[in-house]
C-alpha cells in the first residue's frame, strides 16, 4: 500500500515536472528533422552544435535525413503534397536561391532571428555578402579545388600550382577527374584559354564562348574520368586512377590528413561556394519555434568556430574567424596563403544559363 502510494506520488511529480518543462519552452515541438549531406560534414555539424543543443535540451530529439543533394526536388514534392516533414535543410547557395525563388523556403530577418556576433556586430553585417538570398543562413565557405598525387608528378617537374596544369597533358600526363556538369569546368577552361578572370562570364554568355570552353575541354576529354559524387575524386586519387582531380576541399583534407594519402592541394583558381540552412516555408508554429531556437544557437559565433575543429571549411561569420583553431587555419580555403587566386561563382549567371549550357555539355559528353 505504501509502495503504491510512493509510486503514485513520484509518477505525479514526474508528470508535473514534465509539464513544467513543457510550459517553460512555450509551445515548441520536441523533435526536429535536420537535412544534411552525410559523411564528415554532417558529423561536424552534429559535434559542433547538435550535440551541445541536445545536451541543453534533453527532451528534444533530433533526427537526420541525408537528402541535401535532392533537397530542392523533395521540398517541391513535399510542398505539393502539403506535408513538410523537414524542419531545417542544409543546401548550397544556388539551391537556396532556387528554393527562395519558388517560395519553398521561408524568408529570414537575419538581424532579428539570428544571434549578433560576439564582437557586437549585427548578424547581417557579420555574415556580410554571404547572405546571397533572403532565405539563406550561411554556415560555411567551402571551395571546389584540385588535388593531385604527389608521387605521380613527373621527375624534374615542379608540382602543379597553376590551374592550367589541368589542361597541360605534356608536362603532367595522367588522367583527371572532373565533375560531370558544366559549372566550374567551363570557367576553368576559359581561364586557361586566355580569357581574363573578369571577363569569363561575359564570354560564357555567348555561343562562341561556350564552344570555346568545350573546345578547350575537348583537348583533355579522353583523359577525364567524370565524377558525380564528391567522394569519387579522393577515391580515384587514392587508387592512383587519376593524377589530379577536382572536388570539395574538405574531402581532400580528410584524404590527406586523416587517411594519410600522398595527395597535394592545388588551390589555384579554387571556386568558392557556400553551404547553409534554409527553413522550409509553411512549418506549423510549434515546429517553427523550435527550429528558430535551434538556428539561433547553431549559427552563433562560437558554434560556427567550433565546426571548424572538425572539418576544413571556413566559418561564414567574420567574427568566428579569430576563433578557428591554429592548426586548422592552413587547411581553410579562406587562408590568405591558399586564397591567392580565387574564383567567384556567379549564381545569377548559372540560374539563367544552367539549362542551356548543360544541354550542350551533355551532348558534347555523349559524342
Amino acid at each position, binding site marked *: 500500500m505504501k509502495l503504491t502510494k510512493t509510486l503514485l506520488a513520484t509518477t505525479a511529480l514526474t508528470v508535473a515536472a514534465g509539464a513544467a518543462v513543457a510550459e517553460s519552452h512555450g509551445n515548441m515541438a520536441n523533435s526536429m528533422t535536420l537535412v544534411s549531406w552525410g559523411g564528415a560534414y554532417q558529423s561536424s555539424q552534429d559535434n559542433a552544435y547538435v550535440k551541445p543543443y541536445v545536451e541543453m535540451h534533453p527532451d528534444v530529439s533530433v533526427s537526420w535525413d541525408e537528402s541535401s543533394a535532392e533537397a530542392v526536388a523533395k521540398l517541391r514534392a513535399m510542398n505539393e503534397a502539403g506535408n513538410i516533414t523537414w524542419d531545417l535543410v542544409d543546401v548550397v547557395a544556388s539551391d537556396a536561391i532556387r528554393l527562395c525563388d*519558388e517560395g519553398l523556403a521561408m524568408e529570414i530577418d537575419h538581424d532579428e532571428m539570428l544571434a549578433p556576433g560576439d564582437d557586437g556586430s549585427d548578424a547581417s553585417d557579420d555574415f556580410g555578402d554571404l547572405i546571397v538570398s533572403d532565405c539563406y543562413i550561411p554556415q560555411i565557405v567551402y571551395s571546389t579545388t584540385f588535388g593531385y598525387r604527389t608521387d605521380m608528378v613527373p621527375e624534374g617537374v615542379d608540382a602543379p600550382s597553376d590551374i592550367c596544369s589541368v589542361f597541360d597533358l605534356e608536362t603532367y600526363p595522367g588522367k583527371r577527374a572532373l565533375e560531370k556538369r558544366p559549372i566550374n569546368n567551363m570557367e576553368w577552361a576559359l581561364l586557361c584559354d586566355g580569357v581574363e578572370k573578369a571577363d569569363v562570364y561575359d564570354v560564357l554568355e555567348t555561343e562562341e564562348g561556350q564552344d570555346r570552353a568545350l573546345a578547350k575541354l575537348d583537348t583533355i576529354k579522353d583523359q577525364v574520368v567524370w565524377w558525380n559524387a564528391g567522394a569519387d575524386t579522393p577515391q580515384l586519387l587514392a587508387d592512383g586512377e587519376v593524377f589530379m582531380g577536382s572536388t570539395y576541399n574538405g574531402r581532400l583534407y580528410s584524404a590527406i590528413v586523416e587517411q594519410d594519402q600522398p595527395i597535394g592541394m592545388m588551390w589555384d583558381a579554387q571556386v568558392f561556394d557556400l553551404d547553409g540552412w534554409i527553413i522550409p516555408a509553411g512549418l506549423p508554429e510549434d515546429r517553427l519555434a523550435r527550429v528558430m531556437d535551434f538556428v539561433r544557437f547553431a549559427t552563433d559565433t562560437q558554434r560556427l568556430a567550433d565546426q571548424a575543429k572538425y572539418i576544413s571549411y571556413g566559418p561564414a561569420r567574420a567574427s568566428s574567424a579569430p576563433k578557428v583553431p591554429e592548426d586548422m587555419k592552413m587547411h581553410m580555403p579562406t587562408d590568405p596563403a591558399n586564397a591567392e587566386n580565387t574564383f567567384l561563382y556567379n549564381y545569377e549567371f548559372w540560374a539563367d544559363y544552367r539549362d542551356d549550357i548543360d544541354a550542350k555539355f551533355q551532348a558534347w559528353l555523349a559524342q
Partner: protein
Amino acid sequence: MSDASNDPAQMEGPTPEKGLAAAEKTGPMLAADGTPLKRSLARALRRQKIRALMLIAPLLLFVLVTFIAPILDMLFRSVENQIVSETLPRTVVVLEDWDGTSGELPGDPVFRAAYEDIFLAAEYKLHTRLGTRLNYELTGVSSLFRKSGRGLDDIGEVYQDQFEDLNENWDEGLFWAELMGSDSWLADAQGWQEGQPLPEFELREGMADLLPRTSAAYQDFARFTRVEDEENLIDEEPWTLVHTALYEDLSAGDVSGYSGPHAAELQAAADLVASPDFETADIRAVFEEIDEDWLDIEVWQTIKTYSPNYTSGYFLNAVDMQKTPEGPALRDEDERIYGLLFKRTLFMSMVITFSCIALAYPIAYLLATLPSRTANLLMILVLLPFWTSLLVRTSAWKVMLQQQGVINDVLVWIGLVDDANRLVMINNQFGTIVAMTHILLPFMILPMYSVMATIPPSYVRAAKSMGATNFTAFRRVYFPQSIPGIGAGSILVFILSIGYYITPEIVGGTTGTFISNRIAYHISSSLNWGLAAALGTILLAVVLLLYWAYDKIVGIDNVKLG
C-alpha cells in the same frame, strides 16, 4: 487403360449433357426453392463474384491510390502548362491579338497587362517560379523575371509620389478603405478584433463604374491583404499598382458626378492629373530600364508560344525538337541528346539481355539436372548476390575493372598487358554491360530454372533411344521446351535494364549512361519535371510497344515463370 474413354455419351451416370437433354424434355430445371436452376445458379455466381471482388478491393484500391494515380499524375505533367496562363492571365489574353511572326514588338496594352500580372505575381512570389519554367525554353528569362518583380514598383511610385504630395491621405489605408469599400464592410473592418476572421472586402456601389481599373486593382490588393498577409485592410497602405490604376481612371473618365466620401479629394486628384505638369511613367521604358531583354521579341514569342494550358513542348524537347513561332523544329545539332540516349538505352538493354541468356542458360541447366544437394548449393551461389546491396555489387565491379584494379593488375602481372597501356574497362559501355549483366543475371536464371525443372528427363532419353545425337536431342526436344523460360527471363531483364539508373550512373562514364540518368537529372537537379515526365512517358510507350511486338512474334502465352 485401353477401355478408358473421355466421350461423355459413353459414360454411365449423370452428366451435364444428360441433364440438359432432360431439361429440354421436361421444361426448366428447378432448384430446391422452386426458382429455375439457371437463375439460381447465376445469382449464386454473382454473389461469389462480388465476394471475391470485395476481398481484393482493398488491394485494388491500394494499388490505384498509391501506385497508378501518382504515376498518371506524374506522366500528366508532360503536357501540363497552366503556370503561364495562371501567372500572367491578362498578358496571355492580350497577346492573342499579337502576331509573333510579324517581327514587331507587342503594343502598349501588352506591356500594361504584363506590368499588372508580374506586379501581382511578385506580391504572391510566383514570378520567379514562372521565370524558372520559361527559362527551360529561353535562356535568361529566369533572371529577367526575378529582376522585374521589384523593379516594376518604379511605375506606380511616380503616381504615388504626386498624389501624396497633393494630399497625404492618398497613402493612408483608412482613407482608401473609406473611398473604395462599402459602408457595411467598413463597419465590420473597423469593429474587427484580433483573433476573429477578417471580413471579406466589398466594393462601394457604383465604384466599379466610376473607377474600374482602380476597383479591380484595389480588390486584388484587398484579397491579398486578407488571405496572404492576414492583416486588416484599413491599416494597410495600398500597392503602387493601385495608384497607377487611379491615374489611368482619372485621365480617362470624369469623376465630378461622384458625391460619396472623399469626393473633394478625388476631384482634386483628377484636377492634378489633368494639369499639364503631371508627370507620367512610360511603362515600356520602365521595362526596358529593368532589362533591355524585355524589348527582345524572342521573350514575347516564348510567352505566347507557351501560353496554352497544355503544351506539346516537353514532348518535342524529349525528341530533340523545340517549339518555334513557325512550328516544331529540330534543335541545334550540338544540343541533341535524347534520341541518342534512347537508342543507346535500347541497344545496351538488348546486349545485356543476350549476354544474360548466354550466361544463364548453362547455369539454369546445371541447376535443373544436378542432384538436389549440389543443385541447392549452386542455387545459394546464384541467390547470394541477390542478397547483397546493389551499391556494394556495383562498387565491387569498380574495384575489379578500373585501370589500377584487380583484373588489370593480374593481366600486367602475367605479362599480357603492358603497364603503360592498361585496359580501360570501366566508365564506358563495356563497364555498364558487365556490371549490369552480373546484377540482372539472377532474374534470368530463376525463370529458366523453374521451367527447366519441369522438363521430364525421359523426353531427351526417348529421343536418344530413337537415334538422335546429343545435339539433335537438345536442339529438337530440350531447347523448344525451355523457350518459355528464356522468354520470361528476357522480358524481366530487358524491362529492368531499360529503366536502370544507379549502375550506369556509377560505372557508365559518358558513353555508358542511359536515358534514366537524364530523367533522374531532370527530376532532382534541373527540376524540369515536365521534361522528365515526357521522357518517362516515351520510355513507357517504347516498353509497351516492345511487349506488344514480343506478343505478336513469340506469343505471351509462351512465357512461363514456373
